[in-house]
């Protein structure tokens, strides 16, 4: 991820994430809520997996992007961005995804220079009832100086 426009965008309070093609596919936007980066996935018929339920893969995709963008926002300012790639992604499905808006946010368990451990969770109307959570280990590849 070398796109400086992404860092500028994440510095805003809200916006759309169309810079990332897969985020555009899911129609994602973001919002800062009390400093926390939250991703918003509006409901669309195209997200349905089984009748009346969101596809677990789409929710997993939302979780990964919440983790990825949280990692990018945590990088030191003014330095070139590393390439950030997930190596392991473990998703727990707790509740079915209803056909309504879904939000996701991530927290960094350990921010290393090469490895970042992240926990992400997704919820719908009630944040205290998460529908899906993920544990993701990202590896950072730094550009040569």
């Amino acid at each position, binding site marked *: *991820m070398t796109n400086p426009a992404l860092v500028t965008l994440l510095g805003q309070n809200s916006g759309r994430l169309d810079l990332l093609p897969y985020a555009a596919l899911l129609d994602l936007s973001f919002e800062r809520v009390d400093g926390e980066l939250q991703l918003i996935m509006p409901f669309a018929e195209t*997200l349905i*997996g089984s009748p009346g339920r969101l*596809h677990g*893969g789409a929710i997993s*995709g939302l979780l990964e992007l919440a983790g990825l963008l949280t990692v990018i926002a945590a990088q030191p300012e003014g330095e070139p961005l590393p390439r950030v790639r997930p190596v392991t992604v473990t998703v*727990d*499905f707790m509740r079915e995804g209803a056909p309504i808006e879904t939000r996701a946010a991530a927290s960094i368990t350990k921010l290393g220079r090469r490895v970042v451990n992240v926990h992400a969770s997704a919820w719908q109307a009630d944040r205290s009832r998460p529908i899906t959570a993920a544990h993701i280990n990202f590896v950072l590849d730094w550009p040569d100086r």
Partner: protein
Amino acid sequence: MSNFAEQVSQFMGPFVGRVPHNKQLGLRFVAAGDRWVELQLPFSPRFLVDPDHGVWASGPIITLMDTCVGMASMLARGAFEPHATLDLRTDYVRSPKPEATVTARGECYRMTRQIAFVRGLAHDGDPADPIAHVAGTFMFAASKLAGGWQ
């Protein structure tokens, strides 16, 4: 192949690609056996998260693998029973080749009264050189296997 597996291949096979989110991604059915399924996801630039480096997002791969192993668990169950993913772990062992079609092979290696244990891999042409491995579990709401719903 069992009658159920044949039935699934004929009717559920084409159905897989008509599930709205699978259709949005362009996922398609390839083949199935008694406890395994093969699906494919042709490349689309919409799957990338980092177009500068050609890095794929996880979402399309997880959607592909979840669908694949979910269908394998249904085949192993031998019945159309409601089931839901309990958990799914994906290990990305290497990046896919640029613009590759990704093929998923998933199997259910153990079925209990309530839980299907599944595993699978994704490759971009050679199953011996995968891009990702998955392991997961599916939960069935109730069981007909042990004699009635319990």
